[in-house]
């Protein structure tokens, strides 16, 4: 029984029943300058914890929690993004989130922290390409100049009418995380906003 279900599940993505992949580009363009795909079932934990327990928590996660806001630490396939003075988003390899959640909630600091599994509440979308900063700047008031939005910087902000966490992986490569129910809207927005550059939306990993 378990298996039948989990098999059903594999196809399920934040883009609901949108038919992927999608390629939208004007004839005049050879290749699309924007690529977008969902990173499926990435483990996501929302962690609340004060300065006192930050380091202890980092040890348990095997990835130190950033000290400054808008910053991201990564280690062994795990990302720790700071969302606020006492709030962090942990990205973990698919399937590992439940175990991690248990570990944290059974630790001796569990009383002072809050660990909530939000793997399905949020979805992670990767977007890359030479024009990625231009597209983002059509709907996002953040300064995308490489000097001010650089590798390993993360910000929480609005993209058009959706609230997102935006992470810069490389000069032209970003991950952003939004509420699952906004994924379809965001996808439509990107397809429209990328019109002049051409976009390719793939089924993701």
């Amino acid at each position: 029984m378990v298996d039948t279900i989990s098999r059903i599940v594999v196809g399920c993505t934040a883009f609901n029943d949108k038919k992927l992949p999608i390629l939208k580009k004007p004839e005049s363009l050879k290749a699309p300058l924007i690529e977008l795909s969902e990173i499926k079932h990435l483990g996501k934990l929302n962690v609340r914890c004060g300065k006192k327990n930050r380091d202890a928590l980092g040890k348990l996660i095997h990835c130190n929690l950033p000290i400054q806001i808008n910053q991201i630490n990564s280690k062994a396939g795990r990302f720790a993004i700071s969302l606020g003075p006492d709030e962090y988003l942990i990205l973990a390899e698919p399937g590992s989130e439940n175990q991690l959640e248990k570990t944290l909630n059974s630790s001796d600091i569990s009383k002072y922290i809050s660990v909530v599994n939000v793997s399905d509440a949020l979805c992670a979308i990767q977007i890359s390409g030479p024009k990625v900063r231009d597209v983002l700047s059509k709907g996002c008031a953040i300064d995308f100049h490489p000097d001010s939005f650089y590798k390993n910087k993360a910000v929480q902000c609005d993209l058009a009418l959706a609230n997102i966490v935006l992470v810069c992986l490389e000069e032209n490569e970003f991950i952003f995380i939004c509420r699952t129910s906004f994924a379809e809207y965001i996808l439509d927005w990107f397809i429209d906003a990328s019109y002049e550059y051409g976009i390719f939306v793939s089924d993701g990993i």
Partner: protein
Amino acid sequence: MLKIKCPFCGVRDESEFSCGGEAHIARPTTDLKLTDKIFSEYLFMKYNPKGVFLERWCHTSGCRRWFNLARDTVSHEIIEIYPMGVFPKTVKGKKAYQANWRRKSKYEAVSKPAKRTKK
């Protein structure tokens, strides 16, 4: 379109924030047995100065943290940004705090504005 320096996220566009109105309003608990009239000063009456105003803002689209802000309601100049539960430090901010009629109101005499305490 104001430019607001969120104490945690740095400078962002006004559109990412929401304004919670007047800051430092003491909340009288029920056991204080205030008259309806005095209580209505807490519930409905407003301080609405033309000049420096102490208000609460929340970085809704960012860290979702609340903070205080001293702003001139004519020039829109932001004079001071300071955390919840503490009081303004600038001269203008202090003056604005004292100028507010609530400082003399009966209900504030019995219940004080929220202060930061150890968690």
